[in-house]
């Protein structure tokens, strides 16, 4: 599914709507006009790009179906918001931006669409990519095609191991397990006397990696902690009664849950129905996409809850974030999740890098110059300062805190808010995750 902005000329439509009375002669005339327009566009394209005038095309890859569709929608909405503001302000170096949106689905089809974006649509950069299952396959293709690719949420990690430590064109999201590491750091601070822990996560790489990382971190702070139960239901399950019964029977002091889609809401509801958190502490990393569905009626106060890398209700929010949250709520009647900030940062850092690479001459830079400018670049994003580490990994802050009902919403928010930087909670470039955690001075 390709979507061009409404401004894109359609050679046949330009002649006005066709009706059933069109004669053969008119039809031929229409056809030739259409073909003429198409030829003109084709001849025009390389010329325009060489001159670096006219709109600049940016490819966007986003998930539209399945459990991650809300995440994809949030990323796309933020990118569109960015593009609208930018175009109103004159674009990048005077060029308007035009988004060419393609769907992220399975690795094979997404790689095809990525190729189409670069080779056929001739985009200057590709933004997006959510599932690491897909982006793992995109990495080598992006390197091969020589166009910068800035990933919203996907990494090139196999499990917790980096597969592309020195990419040229690929820019990656934060490591998937960071939210679990942050939760591991904060657990002993807020929950004293934890001796036994049960864990539940989705049965795929993310769920297992989060659980392993959380255990490794918690063991550093509470060496004699025991992990008494681990459950891995598959993604998309809607009934957790049997899992909750098993968690109750384990009599653990604390439950760690890394669910991030609708299942986080469902387990919260079903756990509340049997009063699970009356006797047990809870840690929900959630990856930040379900916050407004955690209603007060069934989400207790006192849980550790994660918002990933952007907290919409941050009292210290920048005017930019406040404006974004306000306009997002007005347009979609939802509060924006973290993916908006990943997407905004990607797009904005591209713009800043182009301007930086162009220098005083304001000549449109080539792609390699843009990549050079992106390395180490730090800019103001929605959630505050964000940067690209030298090995092309996003650096930002993670927001977690204790759930509270003291707010104006019908869902829980967090107070106090803990902000942990990836400088503290993400493995440094070139290191092994568990060696790094085990080397901490606690």
């Amino acid at each position: 599914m390709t979507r061009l902005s409404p401004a894109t000329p359609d050679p046949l439509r330009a002649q006005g709507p066709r009706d059933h009375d069109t004669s053969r002669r008119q039809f031929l005339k229409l056809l030739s006009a259409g073909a003429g327009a198409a030829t003109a566009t084709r001849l025009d394209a390389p010329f325009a790009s060489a001159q670096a005038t006219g709109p600049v095309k940016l490819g966007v890859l986003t998930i539209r179906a399945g459990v991650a569709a809300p995440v994809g929608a949030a990323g796309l909405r933020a990118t569109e918001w960015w593009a609208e503001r930018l175009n109103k302000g004159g674009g990048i170096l005077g060029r308007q931006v035009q988004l060419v949106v393609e769907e992220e689905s399975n690795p094979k089809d997404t790689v095809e669409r990525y190729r189409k974006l670069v080779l056929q649509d001739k985009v200057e950069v590709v933004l997006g990519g959510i599932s690491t299952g897909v982006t793992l396959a995109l990495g080598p293709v992006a390197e091969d095609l020589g166009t910068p690719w800035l990933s919203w949420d996907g990494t090139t990690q196999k499990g917790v191991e980096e597969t592309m430590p020195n990419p040229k064109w690929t820019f990656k999201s934060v490591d998937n397990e960071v939210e679990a590491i942050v939760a591991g750091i904060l657990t002993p601070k807020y929950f004293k006397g934890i001796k036994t822990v049960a864990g539940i996560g989705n049965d795929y790489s993310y769920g297992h990696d989060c659980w392993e990382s959380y255990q490794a971190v918690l063991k550093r702070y509470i060496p004699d902690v025991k992990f008494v139960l681990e459950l891995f239901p598959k993604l998309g399950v809607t009934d957790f009664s049997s899992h909750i019964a098993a968690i109750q029977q384990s009599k653990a002091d604390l439950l760690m849950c890394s669910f991030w889609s609708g299942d986080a809401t469902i387990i919260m509801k079903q756990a509340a129905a049997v009063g699970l958190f009356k006797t047990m502490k809870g840690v929900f990393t959630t990856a930040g996409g379900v916050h407004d569905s955690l209603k007060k009626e069934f989400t207790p106060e006192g849980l550790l809850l994660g918002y990933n890398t952007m907290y919409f209700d941050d009292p210290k929010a920048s005017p930019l974030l406040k404006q974004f949250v306000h306009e997002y709520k007005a347009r979609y009647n939802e509060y924006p999740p973290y993916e908006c900030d990943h997407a905004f940062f990607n797009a904005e850092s591209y713009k800043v890098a182009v301007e930086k690479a162009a220098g005083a001459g304001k000549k449109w830079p080539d792609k390699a110059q843009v990549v050079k400018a992106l390395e180490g670049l730090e800019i103001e994003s929605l959630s505050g300062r964000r940067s690209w580490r030298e090995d092309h990994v996003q650096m930002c802050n993670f927001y977690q805190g204790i759930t509270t009902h003291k707010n104006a919403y019908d869902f829980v928010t967090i107070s106090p808010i803990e902000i942990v930087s990836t400088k503290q909670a993400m493995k440094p470039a070139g290191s092994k995750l568990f060696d790094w955690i085990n080397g901490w001075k606690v």
Partner: protein
Amino acid sequence: MQKIFNLACGSFYALGAYVGISAVQAYTSAGGPPWLFILPLAVAGLLVGGIGVVVERGLLRFVYDRDETFQLLMTFAIVLMMEDAIRLTWGTAPRSTAGLYLAYGQIGVLGATAPVYNLIVIAASLAIALAIGWLLTRTAFGRIIRATADNRDMAEALGVDMRRVYAKVFTLGTALGTLGGALVIPATAAMSEMGIELIVEAFAVVVIGGLG
């Protein structure tokens, strides 16, 4: 009875769930008392089952006498279309009925806590099973259904209007699916792909119970 393997049963279940949520939300915003929410939920679930007659008359009747592959393709196409229709209508984010699940409170059974709503759903499914049993064994319509399932040609020769029976039975099945979806939703959340989840379980049911 129709000897058709209907993959779309999961879609009807999902549709019932979404329509149930909308009905309950409309009911709550109109100021209805929370403890009666099960009524609009069940009524909406049953009514939307009426889509069964449209699907049966409009699509399925063309594939009865064809190879099973056609039936699978047709019903799978319905699954895909319904999933997209749900996404267009209700969006991609999971939807739920907020905290109404606990409107009836919880009770302690043998040291465990169970929400009363779960017991109501169990009672409702027992009642539905009994009602279907009564329909099949004690009514004229039930006898016609059993006769048709046993020998379609003979039933038709004896004057049974196949088209009506098929439409009625299919709609009844659809209504059970949509009602099931509506009743399950307070305890969970609706997601557009929930229909596909159910198909796998439906396969198991067909293997154990056979096409009836």
